[in-house]
């Protein structure tokens, strides 16, 4: 192999692509798209909580309704003076979302209250109503049982959970699990999208050389394996450049945005801050800085990114060489997409439960590992042997896929006019 040649191919792939409008646009638009995507998600959640449900209450006990009114004044309306029949028609005409008929039997727990509704509120309304009723009836019963204020306070006390995480060094730290979960998933998603996106780019680049008919000119100067490696390295360098741009701009934005947000908040509530804690020097800046991401996590991210990219891009290159036009790639794309999609879904399981068997196995299978493992590493302490095993397995797999790909590629690039079948591919590999 001649590294001079590989370097020339790499340089061409990298330079022609980094100058292209497509690259510049994608580098800018993808983060904006992600932000917009998340924004839409948040927006939907905010907008979604708006609708107010109205539930009619016929309270024969005269004691439950006042409690409900305290819990959610907008939700519960007193309809004790209205007959049940007219309530039914109100529900059917969608004037109210439902009604509940309450009597002493409900308080004595001889009978469960019945919630009659048009189904408008769905499950979330039902569970809200259930918990509201539980609280109201409990309150009424406590009142009637004439228990002491102490015990009432006990029932009313709300338990909050503060989390702290024990690190290797034996120090307890502020637990960032929530934040790190997001980091892990974002890293997994970036690897997933990049492998697909840049893999697709490799496929197109190989097909382009075939359809342009320049491939034979190149093949008379460069070995197929040199061309393949140069191409993969060039596009890989492009991918790393893009990710580096993103990381640097995120860190840059964060370091600028934190202090700005701080001074903004401090200016806005100086009186409160002064009153609450006259000795405290303003707000705690930590509130608005991003929790620390370990450098080791970023290094591992790059390693898993590169390995995942290498495994898949070699396969994507083989697909490109086997087909005659982009429309014919479908049949070969499916077997490649399948494992990475599986990895993608396992990642979401790993997010909820990073040490489950599924997550551990998924992070060791080389085709899923780049996505699943990085998510686990971000969220939890993965044993070092698991990480090393995963990396070694991926390197081994890459050697295998590269061998396979080189075989297919060296034959495929010179076969014009028709796309190969799986049968032919196997023949090429055996040759």
């Amino acid at each position: 192999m001649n590294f001079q040649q590989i370097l020339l191919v790499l340089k061409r792939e990298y330079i022609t692509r980094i100058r292209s409008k497509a690259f510049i646009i994608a580098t800018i638009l993808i983060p904006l798209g992600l932000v917009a995507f998340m924004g839409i998600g948040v927006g939907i959640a905010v907008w979604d909580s708006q609708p107010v449900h109205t539930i009619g209450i016929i309270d024969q006990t005269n004691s439950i309704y006042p409690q409900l009114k305290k819990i959610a004044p907008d939700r519960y309306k007193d309809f004790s003076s209205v007959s049940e029949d007219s309530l039914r028609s109100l529900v059917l005409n969608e004037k109210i979302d439902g009604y509940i008929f309450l009597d002493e039997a409900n308080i004595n727990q001889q009978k469960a209250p019945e919630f009659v509704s048009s189904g408008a509120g769905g499950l979330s309304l039902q569970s809200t109503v259930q918990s509201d009723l539980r609280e109201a009836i409990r309150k009424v019963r406590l009142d009637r049982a004439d228990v002491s204020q102490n015990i009432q306070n006990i029932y009313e006390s709300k338990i909050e959970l503060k989390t702290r995480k024990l690190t290797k060094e034996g120090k307890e730290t502020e637990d960032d699990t929530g934040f790190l979960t997001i980091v892990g998933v974002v890293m997994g998603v970036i690897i997933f999208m990049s492998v697909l996106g840049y893999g697709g780019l490799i496929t197109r680049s190989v097909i382009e050389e075939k359809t342009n008919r320049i491939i034979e000119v190149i093949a008379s100067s460069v070995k197929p394996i040199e061309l393949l490696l140069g191409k993969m390295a060039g596009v890989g360098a492009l991918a790393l450049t893009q990710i580096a741009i993103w990381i640097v701009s995120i860190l840059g934005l964060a370091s600028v945005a934190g202090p700005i947000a701080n001074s903004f908040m401090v200016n806005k509530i100086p009186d409160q801050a002064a009153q609450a804690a006259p000795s405290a020097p303003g707000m705690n800046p930590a509130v608005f800085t991003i929790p620390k991401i370990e450098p080791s996590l970023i290094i591992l991210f790059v390693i898993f990114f590169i390995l995942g990219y290498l495994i898949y891009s070699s396969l994507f290159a083989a697909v490109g060489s086997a087909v005659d036009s982009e429309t014919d790639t479908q049949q070969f794309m499916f077997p490649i997409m399948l494992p990475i999609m599986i990895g993608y879904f396992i990642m979401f399981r790993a997010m909820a439960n990073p040490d489950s068997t599924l997550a551990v196995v998924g992070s060791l299978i080389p085709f899923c590992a780049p996505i699943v493992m990085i998510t686990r590493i971000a969220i939890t302490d993965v044993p070092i042997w698991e990480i090393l095993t995963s990396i070694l397995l991926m390197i081994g797999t890459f050697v295998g896929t590269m061998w396979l790909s080189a075989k297919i590629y060296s034959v495929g690039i010179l076969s014009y006019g028709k796309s190969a079948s799986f049968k032919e591919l196997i023949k090429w590999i055996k040759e």
Partner: protein
Amino acid sequence: MSVIQVKNISKSFGDTKAVSDVSFEVPEGCIFGLLGPNGAGKTTSIRIINHILIADNGSVTVNGERVSSNTQHMIGYMPEERGLYKKMKVGEQLIYLAQLKGLSYNEAKKSIKYWLDRFEAADWYSKKVGELSKGMSQKIQFIATIAHDPDIYIFDEPFSGLDPINSEMLKNIVIELRERGKTVLFSTHRMEQVEQMCDEICLFNKGKAVLKGNLREIKNSFGKNTINLEFQGDHTFLDKLENVRINNRSTNFAEIRVLNGQNMQDILKTAIEHAEIYKFERIEPSLTEIFISTVGEDNINPNELA
């Protein structure tokens, strides 16, 4: 001395034998024609010489060296299926291709400037290839083939798809290259180009080299066994002739190959009886005729020979 030596090469793709046991030598400083119908194994042989394909058996040497990445740099190759990166600029692209052939950046740039000037194309340097006309990009393709100034040039079906101007230009380049002592090998299925340009030929049919050697000597060896006949009048008498093969026939012209030693005077007599004869000439057979008589009429598809 022969710059390219092909010895007993064979190459199969699955069950099809593309090339079987082919040998030939290309002497230095000549124009060498590989000819034969499509699918005869010319392109496969050329790819093996270019080290793009590896022969199953046999050996190929270029300048006395077994084919390798190194010998690739000694050859300027223009494949039959040719093209360029459409989105790359002309200058960058030519420099890249020349660098792949082993030139340094500065050498490549200098050589490309020279050739672009020579083809009056200097102002295309920063244009994208996709913006060029077909004829223009064909010129760029020539430059890509010759810019690294190799000693050996291989053109696979160079004239297919060329417009007449570029066709003429390529012919002149090939002849100029020979005058500068370079060796040119090209393949074609069009016999008249070979007759005009080649010193040496190798005839391919069905994966085998069926005839090779100096074009003049080959023609001489066949003798003047062919008649060029020009006439006016009823041409159906041609159908009545026996023991002949008529190759190039129209209403007032025929190229008649005389078979089995039939007396040519008898043919002339028959012709005079039926038509007014303008011209009766004994000539050497055309390459098409040589090809047909070498491989046998039944073994070729005449449509593939022009």
